[in-house]
């Protein structure tokens, strides 16, 4: 297996890595000390911009640019809000940071608060992640006792407070304005934009909302320097290393750190240990959480034009294109959270789509009609198809419903449902035709618990 540098995961695997004692012995808070005592807030922001870090929550927006959207002349201090509502199917990376190295996140929060002038930070964690919540609370407590969180961090007059706020079970609260409503004690329904959170976010104040991994990368960016950190990547304008997840039909599912620009082939066959069953080849992979359209290994990049962003990979398999925000957009999918769901040839794609559309119909907040109705209809039609009660016209109905959801709602949830639905339909239409005639056979999702036996 490739030997990549361990940066954000440098403390993973140490005994008691979640405690201040161990974390500090291994470098924690040295970057925060530097940021508070030797750097101006603007300098911190410049390093983060130079780091070319694209938001790790799924949208891939440059974090440095996002900070820059805060109004310069605001009389009210901004809030920093950390999105730890990890819930995108297939995604399980932020949890490792909160459980194994909560001090890295706390340190990142401190530096970010210094950079944007915030005094209060809320970490919004989904309530199911009890260990993450406990470890974060303990880390904040330890850092407060040491004075790192408090009135004068590192002797500097910049008061800081960090609070953990528990969600209550709603995927939509990962959408930043839904998260803010939830933080304010309301139903987690996304807000109309504008105003954007940078102008009017939590409690009416300017607010930066960043993902856990994005902020946990900030201490390393400060320690190494933005440019050096950025250069860890294999791609331009998309810097650093990042956490990759791999689940489904691979031998060693898990979370791994690697440079930005790893290929899905490396993720599946090197880090993921290869396909679970030797006689069951890769059929499809959802590259970065369930909202990202599915890819097939047999599809080749068609980019003969030298000006095409994927020209360098012309003629190569889609799973050999480096995973980056821009490259995967050019490929017609999205990088998302960089956590791949791997499916072997035993998987019936209509069944897989049914599973995911059940998720979306359960999680739609119901505020916008195209999404509330559309997600329900997609699931009902798929249910009929899978149960052998479908008809051929249902396939076009699915396309029609999905097209009517796209771009017609307050937030990106409907698009995040319609895009993967259309992806399944485009790439596996033949399979939908077969299922429309005869339903799906039982055991259409590959591995069973018994077959996996002994794993515990």
């Amino acid at each position, binding site marked *: 297996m490739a030997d990549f540098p361990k940066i954000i995961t440098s403390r993973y695997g140490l005994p008691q890595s979640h405690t201040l004692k161990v974390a500090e012995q291994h470098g924690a808070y040295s970057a925060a000390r530097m940021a508070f005592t030797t750097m101006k807030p603007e300098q911190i922001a410049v390093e983060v911009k130079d780091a070319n870090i694209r938001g790790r929550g799924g949208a891939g927006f440059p974090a440095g640019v996002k900070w820059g959207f805060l109004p310069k002349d605001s009389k009210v201090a901004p809030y920093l809000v950390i999105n730890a509502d990890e819930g995108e199917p297939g995604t399980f990376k932020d949890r490792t940071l909160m459980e194994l190295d909560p001090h890295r996140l706390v340190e990142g929060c401190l530096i970010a608060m210094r950079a944007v002038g915030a005094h209060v930070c809320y970490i919004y964690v989904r309530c199911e992640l009890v260990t993450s919540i406990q470890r974060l609370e303990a880390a904040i407590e330890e850092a407060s006792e040491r004075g790192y969180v408090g009135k004068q961090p590192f002797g500097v007059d910049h008061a800081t407070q960090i609070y953990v*706020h528990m969600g209550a*079970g709603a995927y939509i609260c990962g959408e930043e304005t839904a998260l803010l409503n939830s933080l304010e*004690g309301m139903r987690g329904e996304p807000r109309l934009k504008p105003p954007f959170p940078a102008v009017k976010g939590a409690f009416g104040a300017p607010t930066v909302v960043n993902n856990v991994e994005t902020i946990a990368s900030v201490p390393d960016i400060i320690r190494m320097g933005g440019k050096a950190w950025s250069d860890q990547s294999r791609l331009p304008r998309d810097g650093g290393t990042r956490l990759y997840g791999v689940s489904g039909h691979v031998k060693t599912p898990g979370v791994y750190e690697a440079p930005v620009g790893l290929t899905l082939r490396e993720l599946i066959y090197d880090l993921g240990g290869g396909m679970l069953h030797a006689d069951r080849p890769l059929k499809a992979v959802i590259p970065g959480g*369930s909202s990202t359209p599915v890819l097939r290994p047999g599809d080749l990049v068609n980019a003969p034009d030298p000006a095409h962003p994927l020209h360098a990979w012309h003629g190569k398999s889609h799973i050999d294109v480096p995973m980056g925000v821009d490259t995967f957009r050019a490929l017609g999918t999205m990088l998302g959270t960089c956590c791949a*769901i791997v499916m072997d040839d035993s998987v019936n794609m209509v069944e897989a789509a049914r599973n995911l559309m059940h*998720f979306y119909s359960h999680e739609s907040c119901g505020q916008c009609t195209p999404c509330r109705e559309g997600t329900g209809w997609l699931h009902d039609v798929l249910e009929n198809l899978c149960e052998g009660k479908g008809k051929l016209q249902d396939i076009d109905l699915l396309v029609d419903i999905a097209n009517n959801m796209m771009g017609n709602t307050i937030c990106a949830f409907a698009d995040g449902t319609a895009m993967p639905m259309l992806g399944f339909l485009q790439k596996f239409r033949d399979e939908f035709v077969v299922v429309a005639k005869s339903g799906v056979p039982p055991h259409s999702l590959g591995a069973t618990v018994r077959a996996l036996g002994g794993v515990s």
Partner: protein
Amino acid sequence: MTFTLSVESEKIVDELLTRYPTQRAACLPLLHLCQRQEGWVSPGVVAYVAKRLGMPTSEVTGVVTFYTMYHQQPVAPNVVWVCRTLSCDLRGGREIQKHLEKRLGCGVGGTSKDGKFSLKTAECLAACGQAPMVQINDDFHENLTLDGLDRIIDELSAKTAAAAPASGDAAQKAEPADAAARVRAKTLMGIGNS
């Protein structure tokens, strides 16, 4: 129907209210705290939270009905959440669900015959690399086998029998590994108070 929070928990609420610029922002954590004590969000809890935070009961109800982790009906002392989303389903999640239905003698949404377990399905619980998995009360059980699952249910079943059956789910919590974390969490969130 009347609900009152314990004196100890009232202190937590006072502290919670210092965290936010508005009272209402404490709504979610306060509901969690009440559910820990009562076992579910009863009409009495809704009335209490509304009064404590100066909100109409209709708005508190609006919050309660939006989020899946607030129980709107009483539940058994142990709540078993089976993850049903794709990564788990690809590695036998459905079999785990069927096994539990058979073992507990109830369907999803139901309660086991002995009244010790409520069975529910959950959407992705961020444990995809350790599929299949279930969450029982506060604990994740990952990389499950059917035998392993049986052992977990046996253990919990024995513990639940030993405790008074009506004492709510807090009595059956496994001891959290991290004592320092527990103290802090106990003070501020009311979780982990086993």
